[in-house]
């Protein structure tokens, strides 16, 4: 099929490839893009990568709202008299060709002075002359070359996104201090009694002091704040002993150099803070191109076309829609409010909401709900509610969306730190009181030494490095986890709840069963060939299911949008499509999606589509059943009950007809009975359940495009691996426990020196980095081995 794939987008060109300059194109859109690039000497686009393009979508009138002053205001990040800068999110950005063409936009429109791509975030930042061109023109240009920007209600939030870089600054300050203090304290390690070195000792020491001041008061401030908050809430978190250690280190060192008692521990202090911050930095793995915080706003359009009383079209903001407004919804546009269909035939795709990919037909007078996408021409509707009061969007007013899941969760490090802190303080006080009898002059020395050496640097590093590395490993395996806490919570779950449609069923491959009179061979050939020429999703699905046939040239081929296909070859005239289109005598409204076929105006039969379950569902459930309670929580009717019973282990609970709120309440109830719930869902209707659960995983066919707010996003192709991800999380907890053992071992050695009153700065300077580095090495190697096991 190599030769028959589109030069621009790589799709199969089907029966009628468009030839242009010895190249084949699947559609006129792709050819047009090629022509644009060709005229502007931008064909380099195709040299960098084979078939990098996307089919440009029909967009007439779709971006009229971009001429509105207040919307431009929100979407641009900078505006002056003649210059505007806007950052647009373009999901199609996927290869180097994309970067190249988007950064050469000024060749296509000379009024664009600069365009810069951020590949990780899939955004392009366009600077243009607003006197000569407009935001709308820029967006239209991008759409016309197949890079349609994604503008949603989310962009309407006021205020620019603020990037928090303080951690890098803190790390920079600590690293700078650490390196320089190490050099300055080098002579002290060897106790060389050289005349000049002795002479400059105070100078060196005060220089170290100067450098450690910003480390303590800037780089380490988070630990003090967190410790203070912990103590206030009567919790001994890990930051308490850390803050204590840092404070003692700093005060003792300062006192030592003030009274010329010794060189102080500035080197250990700087090293400690530096290592701790690297742990934080490492744990802070983010996926720029993913968002875990999406709600309906990310999917809803920013503006919509309203029809005034005098029939005039006007584009208004979605928030301004009022009850009773007449709204025009174009093809491929999202319905933003609940309403009644007035005009046109609606075929609505609710896959955003339910995960169900088959469209639902509505006639005028029917009620339609917000969140669906119109797929069949233009419709007019009357709004019954405002955006925030619609059935779907109401879900977000639930308290669960304003709660932070990490509150009230004690992580493994803080769980151990309580005992650790108490133990360290008791050792410090006991050894000090013993020394008060033996040699009171050394007592204070011992007290501080214990607190310094017991500073739990290695313990504090175990979890960040283990989870941080595991986040990266999971990310490579297409399991994108929001943060380290999620892995920890995943290790503790005991109940797994699945949504049905779109989660354990697959949107992509459906099964179809034929029901009716058998088709003759030649009829089958015509059927297959006519489906080949159609781009309708059902045709594509059916085409893929039917057995391969000879390729023939049809005498006549006509596609009626929203109805079906008419095709003729020799003496066979086929009609494929809806029941009314082919003239099905018994016009019964079936629950399932069907495609009907008639040959020479005689009704033949119908193909009924069934959802097919993802590969490995049965195996996954059998793996999970040993350790977890399993539940299927579906918004659908009980039509699939028998199929599911056959497929899944008998102990799986099957619950149907669940509204979004019901799912949420179900999870809440089980949590109150002690269940730790893992919810796996996909649509916006699962958003409440995902937020309420301990860990919410969204399954996504295309991680760039769609997923509701959740704790982790799992690529659909890796669905069957779910069990091994949970197992790996559990093993990660074991790794952390082992590294705790390792760091206790270092602490015991250190405490020996401290309690016997012989802690020299050089011992601390060796022991501290040694323990930190060995913990980092141990956790990294161990998690990498775990990662290998998943693959």
């Amino acid at each position, binding site marked *: 099929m190599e030769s028959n794939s589109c030069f621009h987008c790589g799709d199969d060109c089907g029966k009628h490839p468009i030839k242009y300059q010895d190249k084949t194109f699947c559609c006129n859109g792709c050819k047009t893009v090629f022509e644009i690039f060709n005229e502007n*000497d*931008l064909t*380099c686009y195709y*040299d*960098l990568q084979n078939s990098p393009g996307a089919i440009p979508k029909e967009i007439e009138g779709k971006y009229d709202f971009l001429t509105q002053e207040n919307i431009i205001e929100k979407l641009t990040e900078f505006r002056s008299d003649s210059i505007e800068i806007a950052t647009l999110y373009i999901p199609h950005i996927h290869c*180097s060709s994309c*970067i*190249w063409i988007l*950064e*050469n936009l000024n060749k296509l429109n000379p009024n664009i002075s600069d365009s*810069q*791509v*951020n*590949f*990780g*975030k899939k955004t392009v930042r366009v600077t243009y002359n607003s006197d000569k061109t407009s935001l709308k023109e820029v967006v239209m240009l991008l759409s016309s070359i197949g890079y349609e920007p994604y503008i949603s209600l989310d962009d309407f939030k006021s205020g620019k996104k603020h*990037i928090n*870089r303080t951690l*890098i*600054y803190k790390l*920079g*300050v600590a690293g*700078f201090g650490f390196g*320089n203090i190490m050099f300055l304290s080098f002579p002290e390690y060897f106790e060389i009694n050289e005349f*000049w070195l002795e*002479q*400059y000792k105070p*100078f060196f020491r005060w*220089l170290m002091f100067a450098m450690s001041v910003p480390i303590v008061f800037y780089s380490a401030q988070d630990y003090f704040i967190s410790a203070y908050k912990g103590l206030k809430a009567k919790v001994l978190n890990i930051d308490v002993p850390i803050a204590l250690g840092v404070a003692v280190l700093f005060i003792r060192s300062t006192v030592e150099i003030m009274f010329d008692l010794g060189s102080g521990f500035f080197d250990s202090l700087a090293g400690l803070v530096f290592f701790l911050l690297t742990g934080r930095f490492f744990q802070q793995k983010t996926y720029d191109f993913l968002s875990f915080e999406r709600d309906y706003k990310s999917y809803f359009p920013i503006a919509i076309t309203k029809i005034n009383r005098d029939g005039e079209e006007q584009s208004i903001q979605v928030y301004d829609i009022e009850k009773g407004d007449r709204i025009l919804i174009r093809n491929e546009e999202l319905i933003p409010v609940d309403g009644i269909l007035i005009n046109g035939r609606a075929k609505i795709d609710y896959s955003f909401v339910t995960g169900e990919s088959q469209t639902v037909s509505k006639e005028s007078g029917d009620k339609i709900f917000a969140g669906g996408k119109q797929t069949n021409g233009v419709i007019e509707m009357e709004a019954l509610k405002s955006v925030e009061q619609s059935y779907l969007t109401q879900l977000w007013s639930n308290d669960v969306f304003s709660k932070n899941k990490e509150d009230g969760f004690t992580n493994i490090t803080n769980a151990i730190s309580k005992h650790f802190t108490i133990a360290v303080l008791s050792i410090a006080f006991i050894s000090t009181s013993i020394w008060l009898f033996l040699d009171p002059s050394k007592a204070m020395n011992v007290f501080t030494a214990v607190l310094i050496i017991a500073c739990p640097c290695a313990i504090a590093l175990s979890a960040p490095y283990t989870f941080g590395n595991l986040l990266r490993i999971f990310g490579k395996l297409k399991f994108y986890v929001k943060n380290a806490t999620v892995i920890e919570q995943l290790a503790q779950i005991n109940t797994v709840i699945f949504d049905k449609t779109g989660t354990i069923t697959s949107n992509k491959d459906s099964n179809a069963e034929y029901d009716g009179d058998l088709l003759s061979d030649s009829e089958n050939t015509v059927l297959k060939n006519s489906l080949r020429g159609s781009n309708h999703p059902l045709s594509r699905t059916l085409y893929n299911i039917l057995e391969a046939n000879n390729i023939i040239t049809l005498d006549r081929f006509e596609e009626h949008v929203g109805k079906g296909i008419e095709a003729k070859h020799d003496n066979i005239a086929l009609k494929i499509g809806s029941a009314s289109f082919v003239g099905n005598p018994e016009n019964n409204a079936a629950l399932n999606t069907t495609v009907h076929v008639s040959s020479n105006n005689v009704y033949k039969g119908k193909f009924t589509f069934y959802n097919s379950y993802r590969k490995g569902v049965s195996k996954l459930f059998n793996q999970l059943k040993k350790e977890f309670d399993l539940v299927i929580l579906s918004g659908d009717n009980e039509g699939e009950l028998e199929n599911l019973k056959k497929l899944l282990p008998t102990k799986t609970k099957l619950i149907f007809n669940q509204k979004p709120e019901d799912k949420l309440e179900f999870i809440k109830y089980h949590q109150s009975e002690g269940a730790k719930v893992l919810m796996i869902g996909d649509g916006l209707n699962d958003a409440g359940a995902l937020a309420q659960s301990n860990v919410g995983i969204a399954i996504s066919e295309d991680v760039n495009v769609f997923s509701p707010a959740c704790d982790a996003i799992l690529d659909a192709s890796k669905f069957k691996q779910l069990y091994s991800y949970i197992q790996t999380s559990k093993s990660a907890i074991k790794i952390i426990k082992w590294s705790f053992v390792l760091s206790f071992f270092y602490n015991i050695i250190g405490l020996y020196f401290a309690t016997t009153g012989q802690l020299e700065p050089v011992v601390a300077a060796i022991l501290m980095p040694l323990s930190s580095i060995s913990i980092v090495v141990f956790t990294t190697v161990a998690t990498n081995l775990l990662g290998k096991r998943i693959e």
Partner: protein
Amino acid sequence: MSVIYILLSVSVVIGVAFFVIFIMAVKSGQYDDDYTPSVRMLFEDELVKKQTNTTKQTKTD
């Protein structure tokens, strides 16, 4: 030997200068996108080549 004060202050000044440059680089957003620049730097040549080609073409026209 008081030259050591000069040497030390020079080294500290250099160190601080580099540190300030680092802070400025972070602030300018240089570390926000660590992938695109690596691709972008490979493009320049092709772009220049294309441009010269077009100028040649217009000349022959």
